[in-house]
C-alpha cells in the first residue's frame, strides 16, 4: 500500500517536470481535452437528463402532502443534482469511459515497448503521456459537470411537463428560490478532484502494466475500480469539509 502510494507520488512528480517542448505538450493537452470533453458529451448528456427526471419524479412522489409546498420538489432536485448527482454520478460513469481508455492506452504502450521507445529518445514519458491527460481531466470534467447540472435540471423540467404531480411553474419557482452559491462551489471542487483522480489513478495503473494483453485488461479494470472507490471517498471528505 505504502509502496504503491510512494510510486504514485513519484510518478506524479515526474509527470509535472518541465516539458521538453511546450508546443508539443500543448497540442497533446488539446487532444486530450477533446477526447475527454467532446468524447464524453453524449454519455454525460444522456445520464444527466434521465437522472434529473428520475430525481424529480421520486422527490415529488415522496413529498405528497398538503403541508409541503410543491415548489420544494424543484429546490430538492436542484440541490441534489448540483451537489451529488451531477459531479459524482458523472464521475463514476467517466471513470468507466475515460479511465479505462487511459489505463488501457498507456498499458498497451508499455507492453508494446512504446514507452521504452520514448525513454530511449530522451522524452520524459510520464510527462508526455500523463500530464496532458490530467490537465484534460481537471479542466473538462468540471465543464462536463456544469453541462450535466443544466441537463439534469432540464430533465426535471421535462418530467414535470410530462406528469401532473408538479407543474413546471412550481418546479421553476423551486429551482430559483433559496439558491446558495456554496453548493455550486462544492460541486466544482468535487468535479476538479474527481477529474484528477480518474486520470491520475488510471494513468498510474496503465504506466506500471507488465506482461501482455491480459495484464492490460487487468490494469484497466483496476484503474476503474480504484478510481470509483477514491471518488466516493473524496466525495465524503469534500462534503464534510465544505458543507
Amino acid at each position, binding site marked *: 500500500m505504502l509502496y504503491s502510494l510512494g510510486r504514485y507520488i513519484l510518478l506524479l512528480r515526474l509527470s509535472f517536470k518541465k516539458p*521538453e*517542448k511546450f508546443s508539443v505538450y500543448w497540442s497533446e493537452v488539446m487532444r486530450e481535452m477533446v477526447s475527454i470533453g467532446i468524447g464524453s458529451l453524449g454519455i454525460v448528456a444522456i445520464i444527466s437528463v434521465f437522472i434529473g427526471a428520475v430525481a424529480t419524479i421520486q422527490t415529488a412522489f415522496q413529498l405528497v402532502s398538503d403541508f409541503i409546498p410543491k415548489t420544494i420538489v424543484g429546490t430538492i432536485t436542484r440541490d441534489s443534482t448540483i451537489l451529488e448527482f451531477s459531479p459524482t454520478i458523472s464521475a463514476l460513469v467517466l471513470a468507466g469511459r475515460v479511465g479505462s481508455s487511459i489505463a488501457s492506452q498507456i498499458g498497451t504502450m508499455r507492453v508494446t515497448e512504446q514507452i521504452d521507445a520514448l525513454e*530511449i529518445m530522451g522524452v*520524459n514519458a510520464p510527462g508526455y503521456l500523463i500530464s496532458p491527460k490530467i490537465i484534460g481531466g481537471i479542466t473538462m470534467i468540471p465543464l462536463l459537470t456544469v453541462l450535466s447540472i443544466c441537463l439534469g435540471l432540464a430533465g426535471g423540467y421535462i418530467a414535470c411537463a410530462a406528469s401532473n404531480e408538479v407543474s413546471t411553474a412550481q418546479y421553476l419557482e423551486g429551482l430559483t428560490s433559496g439558491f446558495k452559491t456554496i453548493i455550486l462551489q462544492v460541486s466544482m471542487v468535487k468535479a476538479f478532484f474527481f477529474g484528477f483522480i480518474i486520470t491520475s489513478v488510471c494513468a498510474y495503473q496503465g504506466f506500471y502494466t507488465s506482461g501482455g494483453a491480459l495484464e492490460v485488461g487487468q490494469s484497466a479494470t483496476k484503474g476503474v475500480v480504484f478510481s470509483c472507490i477514491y471518488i466516493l471517498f473524496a466525495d465524503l471528505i469534500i462534503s464534510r469539509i465544505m458543507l
Partner: protein
Amino acid sequence: MIETINIHKTFGDNYVLKGIDVELKAGRNNLIIGGSGSGKTTLLKCIVGLHKPEEGEVIYDGQNFTQMDFEERVPIRKQIGMLFQSSALFDSMTVQDNIIFPLNLFTTMSKKEKIERANFCLERVNLAGKNKLFPAELSGGMKKRVGIARAISMQPKYLFVDEPNSGLDPKTSILIDELIAEITEEYQTTTVIVTHDMNSVMGIGDHIIFLHNGQKWWEGSNKQIAHTNNKELNDFVFASKFMQAAREKL
C-alpha cells in the same frame, strides 16, 4: 565507442548478467548473440539505460552513462536510435509523424525541413510515399523499416537493434540486415544488434559477442566463428543440420 565494465544484473533470485565487459566500436556491426535466457536483451537494456545494473558501468565515448540522472542522459539519448523487437511504433501516429516525433521535440527545424527529413529517411529504407499510413496498415517488415527510419531521423551516433529479424521471412530478414549494415557504414554508427539469427551472424557480424549463462563466453568475428573450438558456441551456432553442412564447406 561504448564500453561496459563488469555489468551485473539480477531479477529477484534470477542472476542474469554476471560481470560483462565488452567494447563496442564505431562503424562496426556489434552482434550480441546467445540462446534464449542468456541475457542478451538484458545487456542491451542495461546499455541503453532501460535497466539499471546492480553493479558495473556503461561508458559512452568516455562519459559514464550509469552514473547520470535522467536529465544528464538526454544529450546522449538524442544520439541514440533504437529499433525494438516489436518495432514500437506509436499506433496513434502516421508513419511520417512517427519519424518526425523526435525532431518535433528536440530540434528547431521548420515543418518543411522535418517533412523533407522524413521523406529522406523513408527513401533510405525503401518506403518512399508511405508517409500517411498508420502502423496498423503496415506489414511486419515495413514496420521494422519504419522503425529504422525513425531511429536514423536524428542522425544517431549509436544504433541499437533488438531482434531485427524476429517474425520476418528470410528474404526480408536479409534486406533488414543489409540496411542496418549500410547505415552503420554510411553514418559510422556504433551499432549493437541483439540476435539469434544465424544469417545475420554470418552475414553482417563484424564483431560478435556470445553470451552463455549471463557471461561473455566468446568474442570474435563471423570469419572466426566457423573455426572456433568453443563447445557452447558451436552447439549454438551449428545447431541445425544446414549450418553443420555449411560449416563443412567453409
